[in-house]
């Protein structure tokens, strides 16, 4: 080994990755060269430092619960596929019942959610079109709101935004941090106008009661605007409107006047199938 190769192998020696012959050669060199010994010690210290820095990264609270819930939702989809093959639709009905009455957070008091959290997801996921394939199921495939509603029970009560000239562009489970912290599940579907790709609307369904907050106060003194049924707020150029149906809260976000967004929110509910029609208002 020439000196250049020798230096290159010092880090590999520090990792314990050399074969016995190379190791013996390096060790003979190290016995003669204190500078190389110091290099080896520093490579080891650097790796330990990197390890320490990275494993100390905090993991968000409730992450495992949210991953489990996602996997559970994915299973429900598979159950629904069995239903399509002619098996009883009990699995789907059970999923809807779970969505409305059993899921964690459904009985909790209203959670105060900053409008900026929804607006941030709108900008990140919807405007930047983060999810080209719909990863609600984990394997893509939903092309329409009806398909999405059939696959994800939480989407069942979303307003019929496609009837206003939008098409479903993507969906994900992203939501504001407050929802994640309280263990609520958030389904985010976003829509884009076919004739204007810059016109994007996000629709969120949250399986707990939330109130929109624009003031950032803790606790919020009650800063909501809009009507008793449809509360609204703004974050920069993004308008938001929030309303509740039974145990589910819904939020729309888009770059348009709040009044127009409220009209979209007031659109008719389009249940995907008779199963949903029985349980969704």
């Amino acid at each position, binding site marked *: 080994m020439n000196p*250049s190769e020798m*230096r*290159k192998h*010092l*880090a*590999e020696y520090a*990792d314990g*990755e050399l074969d016995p012959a190379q190791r013996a050669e390096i060790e003979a060199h190290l016995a003669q060269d204190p500078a190389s010994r*110091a*290099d080896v010690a*520093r*490579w080891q*210290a*650097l*790796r*330990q*430092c*990197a*390890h*320490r*820095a*990275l*494993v*100390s*990264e905090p*993991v*968000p609270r409730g*992450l*495992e619960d*949210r*991953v*489990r819930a*996602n*996997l559970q939702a*994915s*299973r429900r989809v*598979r159950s629904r596929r069995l239903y399509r093959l002619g098996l009883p639709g009990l699995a789907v009905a059970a999923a809807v019942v779970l969505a409305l009455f059993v899921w964690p957070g459904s009985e909790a008091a209203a959670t105060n959610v900053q409008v900026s959290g929804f607006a*941030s*997801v709108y900008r*990140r*996921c919807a405007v*930047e079109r*983060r999810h*080209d394939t719909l*990863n609600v*199921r*984990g*394997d893509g495939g939903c092309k329409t709101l009806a398909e999405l509603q059939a696959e994800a029970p939480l989407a069942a009560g979303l307003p019929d935004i496609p009837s206003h000239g939008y098409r479903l562009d993507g969906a*994900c*489970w*992203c939501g504001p941090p407050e929802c*994640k912290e309280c263990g609520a599940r958030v389904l985010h579907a976003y829509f884009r106008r076919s004739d204007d790709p810059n016109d994007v609307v996000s629709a969120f369904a949250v399986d707990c009661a939330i109130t929109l907050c624009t003031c950032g106060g803790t606790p919020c003194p009650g800063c909501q605007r809009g009507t008793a049924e449809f509360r609204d707020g703004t974050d920069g150029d993004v308008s938001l409107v929030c309303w509740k149906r039974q145990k589910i809260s819904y939020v729309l976000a888009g770059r348009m006047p709040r009044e127009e967004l409220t009209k979209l929110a007031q659109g008719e509910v389009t249940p995907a199938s008779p199963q949903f029609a029985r349980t969704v208002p």
Partner: protein
Amino acid sequence: MGSADKQSFEALALPHLDTVYRVARRLAHHEHDAEDLVQETFLKAYAAFDRFQVREFGIKPWLLKILTNTFLNRRQRAERGPRSTDPQTLDETQADEAYAGPPDLDYEHLDQEVKQALDQLAPEFRTVLLLWATLEFSYREIADALDVPIGTVMSRLHRARQQLARALHDFAREQRLPGVKTQT
């Protein structure tokens, strides 16, 4: 997929959730994006669990392979075109740079600087370095996780370490820390 398989997926995969998240966090930079990556990784892994075969190193390298592929695909999509940096080209063009040993610093107190230096690396190098540092994987395990030859792992790790060492040299110079070894 049978219910026993579903349970075995959770039993096998979820113990590695924290590790997967930590790697995702450094790949994606933002907490929100990292969690999104983790969710997609586990859904994909679950959907493909029928095809998973427990190999020498268990399920963790497989999860990390899905994670890194998902991350690189997203990045490619976000750039709306081919990758800006071809890893093979990177491997070749930087092969002749002068050797930089790590500077003589107090590595007990450099966690933040190391994290920042890591964030500056090209994703292909960062991925290798993350598996090497966070998980203390051997070169063979990294090759298995990323599905690349072991020679590629060694070459990328060498370049990544060199860049890390240079970044720390720069940091030491900026801070005028004593005892910094001159690069050769």
